[in-house]
C-alpha cells in the first residue's frame, strides 16, 4: 500500500520569504509523486510531478520539489512567497489511483 504524510496542517509565511511544505511518503515500490494546489472554491491544479526521472522537479509558479529516497521525502519549496500562493496544498502518491495527503494550508501575510 502507498501513503503520504503531510507534516504540517498549516504553514504561515510572509510575502517574499521562502516556502517549505513537507511531505513524507511510503511505498513498496518506486512511487509516482505529485503536488496539487486547491485555491478557495477552485478546482485542483497539478503543480508538479515526480516519475523516476530527475530527482529535482520544477513545477509551475516557481515551485519545485526534491525526491529524496533515503529520507522518503518529497518536500515542496518556493524561494519567495506571493500573496496568490495562499491555498491548500496536497501531496499525492500513486499511479492512476491516487492517494492524497491530508493537506497543508499555506497562509501568506503581507
Amino acid at each position, binding site marked *: 500500500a502507498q501513503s503520504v504524510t503531510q507534516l504540517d496542517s498549516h504553514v504561515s509565511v510572509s510575502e517574499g520569504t521562502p516556502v517549505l511544505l513537507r511531505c513524507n511518503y511510503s511505498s513498496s515500490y518506486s512511487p509516482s509523486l505529485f503536488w496539487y494546489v486547491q485555491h478557495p472554491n477552485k478546482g485542483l491544479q497539478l503543480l508538479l*510531478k515526480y516519475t523516476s526521472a530527475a530527482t529535482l522537479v520544477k513545477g509551475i509558479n516557481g515551485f519545485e520539489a526534491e525526491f529524496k529516497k533515503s529520507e522518503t521525502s518529497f518536500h515542496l519549496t518556493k524561494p519567495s512567497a506571493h500573496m496568490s500562493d495562499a491555498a491548500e496544498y496536497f501531496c499525492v502518491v500513486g499511479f*492512476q*489511483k*491516487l*492517494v492524497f495527503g*491530508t493537506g497543508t494550508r499555506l497562509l501568506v501575510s503581507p
Partner: protein
Amino acid sequence: SAVISQKPSRDICQRGTSLTIQCQVDSQVTMMFWYRQQPGQSLTLIATANQGSEATYESGFVIDKFPISRPNLTFSTLTVSNMSPEDSSIYLCSVVRSGNHEQYFGPGTRLTVT
C-alpha cells in the same frame, strides 16, 4: 491537459433522494475516476469508471450507493443514492490520458444534503 466539465456545479438535496452528477471531457481519455472531498478534508477515491463495464470500487464504497456509468471514452456519471447529510461533500471526476502520469480534475460538484 484536459478540459473537464461537471454538472451540476452545486446542488442542495433532501435526504432520501438521489442525485446524478455528469462528467464530460473534451477528448478521449483512457481512465476516469470519481473522488469525494468531505468538508475540510482531503480527497478519497470512490471508484474507477470503466468504459463498457462495471466500475471498480474502493474499500468503503459500494455500487448500490454510488452507481457509476461510463458509456464512452469522454463521459461518465456518478449517482449518489438515498442521500443522507453525511453525503454532503464535493464530488470530483478526474481523467488520465494514455501514456501520461498526469491526472486532471474537474471543477467538482458541491452537494449539500438537508
